[in-house]
């Protein structure tokens, strides 16, 4: 099957009978729901751009066997693939100003590819073959795959097997000749709703006592027992008001869901890890590494839009020539490009795994993500500074369109001559959307906690930082003899 068009993708998702709940009600047609649709449109862009000659160099990969696939289903063959992944993510961030959700599956693909290879080598299992079959199915049908890692975790001081409620980490509850039955939940599942398949992975390193929790597999989204409860986003119900202006970004968005696996059956040929606890940590570390690289692309693309929006707001406010405004835009650019530099650097310094695919430099990927936990916040702060308080106090579109009130909004919220009040409101609402509206979920808090919270990166930086070598350097320069 050829690459899907955006429309074909949407219809393919429509056909999946997934179980979705929001505001206490079952959503019969998530594809047509006004709160959820923008998130589907964001994933759609990964299909639309792949069809366009001016983007296909980043969006697609032609394999050695001649198959042309979407880069989101690619196994990285060299450092150039790793670099192009980051560039593709920047492009999509620019085009959507939102989370486009498909990265997590790509990162799961690459982490599982190498981990199953090494698990099989140690145990004689056939997980790699299982994964290759699944991967080929996804590539040939151009599927979107969610990667589900984060368990609810309950009491963080306790290991999975020691939790008072054994379901706080997803685990195997039954082993049958034809497969396994699993129970648990995965939190914060970005894009699960818009995926054809989900890959489940463990969320922490494990010891032998956690055997039932060291499990990885893939199932389709309409698997019995799997259902989603959509997470609230700040200002989400604005999308129900029918105002294009007030939502800031009416076309694109992200979505997250608490996903429940209530005794879900997984057939044997969809299992990628089943009790080999020492490989849980490898899978987590590799997935996290790839995903920390991802943020050096996607958040940069969204940052490009926010920087642009702040510059437009400055133009409309008549402040663009003020030196402090220029300097703030420079600072925003500096921060954003620093993130990009980290994404590119950890890719360029990548290396081959035993399985043959390429992985990023883990130290640089963790430095990348550590910066992502900070810089978007500062970029947002500067955008709010430039935009002015009106971005959070402006009246609604309904007031703007009102026969009596509209003329006053038009008159008193006007900026420079030659720019309509409506356009000024539009750019301010876009900044609001990214700073504290629905898109802030993706641009701010996801930058903090997505792909691991800041402390997780600091642990990795401590492990990978090569401090012993640095101490030796210092002693040598200081002529210390011990």
């Amino acid at each position, binding site marked *: 099957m050829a690459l899907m068009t955006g429309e074909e993708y949407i219809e393919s998702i429509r056909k999946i009978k997934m179980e979705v709940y929001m505001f206490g009600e079952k959503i019969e047609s998530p594809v047509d729901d006004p709160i959820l649709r923008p998130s589907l449109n964001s994933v759609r862009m990964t299909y639309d751009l792949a069809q366009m*000659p*001016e*983007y*296909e*160099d*980043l*969006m697609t990969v032609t394999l050695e066997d001649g198959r042309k696939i979407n880069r989101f289903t690619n196994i990285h063959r060299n450092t150039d693939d790793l*670099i*192009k992944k980051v*560039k*593709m993510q*920047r*492009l999509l961030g*620019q085009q959507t100003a939102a989370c486009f959700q498909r990265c997590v599956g790509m990162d799961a693909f690459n982490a599982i590819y190498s981990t199953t290879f090494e698990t099989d080598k140690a145990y004689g299992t056939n997980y790699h073959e299982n994964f290759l079959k699944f991967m080929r199915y996804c590539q040939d049908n151009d599927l979107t795959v969610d990667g589900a890692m984060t368990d609810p975790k309950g009491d963080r001081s306790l290991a999975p097997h020691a939790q008072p409620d054994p379901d706080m980490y997803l685990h195997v509850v039954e082993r049958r000749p034809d497969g396994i039955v699993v129970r648990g939940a995965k939190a914060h599942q970005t894009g699960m709703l818009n995926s054809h398949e989900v890959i489940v992975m463990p969320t922490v390193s494990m010891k032998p006592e956690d055997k039932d929790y060291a499990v990885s597999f893939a199932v389709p989204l309409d698997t019995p027992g799997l259902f989603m409860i959509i997470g609230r986003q700040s200002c989400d119900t604005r999308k129900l008001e029918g105002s294009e202006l007030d939502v800031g970004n009416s076309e694109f968005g992200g979505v997250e869901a608490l996903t429940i696996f209530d005794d879900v059956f997984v057939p044997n040929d969809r299992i990628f890890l089943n009790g080999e606890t020492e490989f849980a940590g490898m899978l987590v570390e590799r997935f996290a590494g790839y995903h920390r690289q991802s943020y050096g692309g996607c958040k940069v*693309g969204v940052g*490009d839009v926010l920087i642009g929006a702040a510059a437009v707001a400055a133009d409309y406010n008549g402040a663009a020539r003020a030196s402090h405004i220029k300097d703030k835009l420079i600072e925003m650019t500096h921060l954003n490009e620093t993130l990009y530099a980290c994404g590119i650097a950890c890719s360029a310094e990548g290396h081959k795994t035993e399985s043959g695919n390429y992985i990023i430099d883990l130290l640089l990927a963790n430095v990348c993500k550590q910066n992502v936990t900070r810089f978007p916040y500062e970029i947002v702060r500067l955008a709010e500074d430039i935009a002015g308080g009106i971005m959070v106090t402006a009246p609604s579109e309904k007031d703007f369109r009102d026969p009596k009130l509209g003329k006053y909004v038009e008159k008193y919220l006007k900026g420079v001559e030659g720019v309509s009040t409506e356009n000024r409101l539009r750019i301010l609402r876009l900044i609001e959307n990214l700073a504290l509206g629905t898109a802030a979920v993706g641009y701010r808090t996801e930058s903090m906690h997505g792909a691991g919270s800041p402390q997780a990166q600091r642990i990795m930086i401590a492990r990978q930082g090569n401090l012993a070598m640095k101490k030796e350097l210092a002693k040598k320069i200081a002529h210390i003899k011990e």
Partner: protein
Amino acid sequence: MKIGIKYCGGCNPRYDRTDIVRRLRGDMPGAEIVSAVPGAELDYAVIVCGCTSACADADGITGKHGRMLLTSGDAYEELLERLKQL
């Protein structure tokens, strides 16, 4: 004349890459302008890159009379000159 176009992926272009092709269509109305794929028979290939990193994968893409790599919109006049001389 058959001119093949290969774009980079466009992650951070410094100019409107598609405008190059629009202008070519206007300035060379008799030319057949197609998407370039490796091995395709072309008279000339144009690799349109949005910045100087020029990361487009252009292996196997060339024309009978060669190819030109663009990393700036300013290079359009030179491209047009070359094509008109063919």
